[in-house]
């Protein structure tokens, strides 16, 4: 008797055809099992987020989400989150060479000196809840609806959304379409500021409504056994009160360039936002590489690019690590200003909020996930460091002060007064 052991050589066409035929057979959707069903089950996820901006806001946000899977692929999910935000937020005012006082809307005041960006302290507590339902319609189509609600001291939001997806071309391609609607109310503490009026102008009491409508379409395609590509586009229309009620703009004296007065900011009451997102998931032998690129533009003149990359690497069958890099570049809104000159006519709209400015951020982080042996739940620990800065910030008043030794660049033009931000997130997911 002859026994042979052979080693592989390049694949030939019979094997390829057979492999493809077997793939097609086994990819077909399965009829519902007569004896056993996909066991309906619950899943609980909880996270705790700790976020700190250097010298500014600190956020602590615990969240919980409970998901229940039913037979036939239906699912119900309920999420709850509480944000406790304390700290200080930039007012939009310019740094000065002198002691500058700011008052906060809660009546307290703070002082800042020299080239520090003026901020005012705030404290807020936000509750949010959302409910979602997923319903498969046949074996190729699925629909999901969601509703959400959030409430804080000066802002309330309620909204809902609908999304449906269809698998076509033997489940190689998925098409998605969705729409959402949100109705918000803004009721700032102390009343609503009058746009572009001096910041000590009496405020108007009452609510300010805001509506947000969103539509999105997406397509994702299985390119090969290892590679999934996707693209989505969305458009959002916001109408109503879109101004930030606590932000101001400094008025500078035309000669000394020192800030001498402050006015409230003012933004248009409509905003049309668009974005396109391309995403790729590639499965190597062991690792998975995720990459997203997003281009955003709106009719306020803001444009931005985001590049986000992650690699998931299994350390063992019980643990994994996922390093992450994100780069963001934004060009400012057409009405963004660092400050306004006193005596000149005021523009129709203006804001010094750095979130509408020439912003750059770079984020580096990593997530570590692990299971405790014998236990069903999975823990995740994520740490991220973000550096955020504005480009083209004008020189501060220090540079024009005679006290500064010649050649000292500390107040030079175009400096990047960057902010360091750290985030730690702890999560736990368990099915039961």
């Amino acid at each position, binding site marked *: 008797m002859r*026994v042979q052991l052979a080693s592989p050589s390049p*694949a030939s066409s019979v094997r390829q055809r057979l492999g493809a035929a077997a793939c097609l057979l086994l990819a077909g959707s399965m009829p519902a099992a007569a004896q056993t069903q996909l066991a309906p089950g619950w899943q609980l996820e909880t996270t705790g987020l700790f976020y700190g901006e250097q010298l500014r806001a600190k956020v602590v946000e615990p969240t919980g989400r409970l998901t229940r899977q039913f037979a036939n692929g239906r699912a119900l999910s309920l999420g709850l989150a509480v944000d406790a935000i304390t700290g200080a937020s930039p007012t939009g005012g310019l740094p000065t060479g002198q002691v500058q006082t700011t008052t906060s809307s809660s009546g307290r005041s703070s002082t800042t000196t020299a080239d520090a960006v003026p901020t005012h302290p705030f404290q807020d507590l936000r509750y949010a809840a959302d409910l979602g339902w997923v319903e498969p319609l046949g074996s190729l189509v699925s629909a999901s609806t969601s509703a959400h609600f959030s409430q804080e001291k000066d802002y309330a939001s309620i909204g809902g959304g609908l999304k449906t997806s269809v698998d076509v071309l033997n489940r190689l391609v998925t098409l998605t379409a969705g729409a959402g609607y949100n109705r918000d109310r803004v009721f700032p503490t102390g009343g609503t500021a009058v746009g572009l009026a001096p910041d000590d102008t009496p405020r108007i009491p009452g609510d300010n409504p805001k509506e947000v409508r969103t539509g999105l379409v997406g397509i994702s395609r299985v390119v090969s056994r290892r590679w999934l590509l996707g693209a989505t586009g969305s458009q959002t229309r916001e109408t109503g009160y879109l101004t930030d009620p606590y932000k101001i703009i400094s008025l500078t004296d035309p000669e000394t360039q020192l800030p001498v007065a402050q006015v409230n900011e003012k933004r248009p009451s409509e905003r049309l936002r668009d974005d396109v997102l391309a995403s790729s998931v590639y499965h190597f032998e062991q690792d998975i590489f995720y990459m997203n690129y997003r281009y955003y533009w709106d009719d306020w003149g803001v444009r931005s690019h985001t590049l986000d990359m992650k690699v998931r690497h299994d350390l063992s*069958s019980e643990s994994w690590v996922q390093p992450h890099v994100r780069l963001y570049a934004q060009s400012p809104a057409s009405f963004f200003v660092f400050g306004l000159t006193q005596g000149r006519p005021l523009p129709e709209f203006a804001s010094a909020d750095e979130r509408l400015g020439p912003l750059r951020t770079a984020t580096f982080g990593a997530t570590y996930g692990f299971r405790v042996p014998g236990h069903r739940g999975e823990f995740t620990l994520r740490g991220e460091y973000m550096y955020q800065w504005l480009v083209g910030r004008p020189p501060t008043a220090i540079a024009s002060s005679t006290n500064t030794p010649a050649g000292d660049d500390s107040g030079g033009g175009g400096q990047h007064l960057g902010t360091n931000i750290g985030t730690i997130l702890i999560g736990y997911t368990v099915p039961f």
Partner: protein
Amino acid sequence: MASPCEVLVDTDDEPTARAALDAARGEALRIEHKFSRYRSDNVIDRINHSAGKPVEVDEELAGLLDYAATCHEISGGRFDITSGVLRRVWTFDGREHTPDPAALAAALALVGWTRVSWRDRTLTLPAGMEVDLGGLGKEYAVDRAATRIAEVTASAFLVNFGGDLFASHLRRAERPWLIGVENPATPASGHLGRLQLARGALATSGDARRFVLVRGRRLGHILDPRTGWPVEGAPRSVTVMAATCTEAGTLATLAILRGGDAARFLEEQGVQHWLLE
């Protein structure tokens, strides 16, 4: 399935192991009830007694028939799910038999996938013909059972239905599954070889248990549908490794159907295999 079936799950959690076993058993029973030719209450029985009338089939059976049609084409007509009627002519009990030529000719007239009409999810068999999915059923059940198990647990597992098996992935601490390849001459003892399987499927085809003697010559039980006789010069046993059990089983069967060319066929396909002549 007419063979011992087992499921191995690499976990310390008993409820998980039970859930996996229930999932696999449920799927195996479902497939057997639906596709067995020995039952009188399923779609296969309806087809085999359809007396020439068209029968519409569901998505799952359509998938299997498409697959069988592809195999028929790839193998040049050697793989044929209508060849089951030939079993009436042969008795594979290890003893001396000679088939009756008239009976063999009559049976051959009822064999041939090319005589069947299969389109638009409708199958029409000429009266007297039968389809038999026995050559595909066990391997298909392994793959389906594996999918069901993966729905209820992420632990590594191995499904083995009578020697046709599938392993999902490496066990904990990166350890592979250890598989022994049985020696058909001495099934109770002595392995032909041992292999380490990380993930994938193994299927074995052969005549270890069923054969016939014709004028002193030993012939296996796998019949060539073009002649009605057992395949000449086929190896006693062929084991093939592939990504899915369906693929592995089909490659093993196609190899045996090549008779003396089995070894060369498997070399050309570039699959890992073990042969016993």
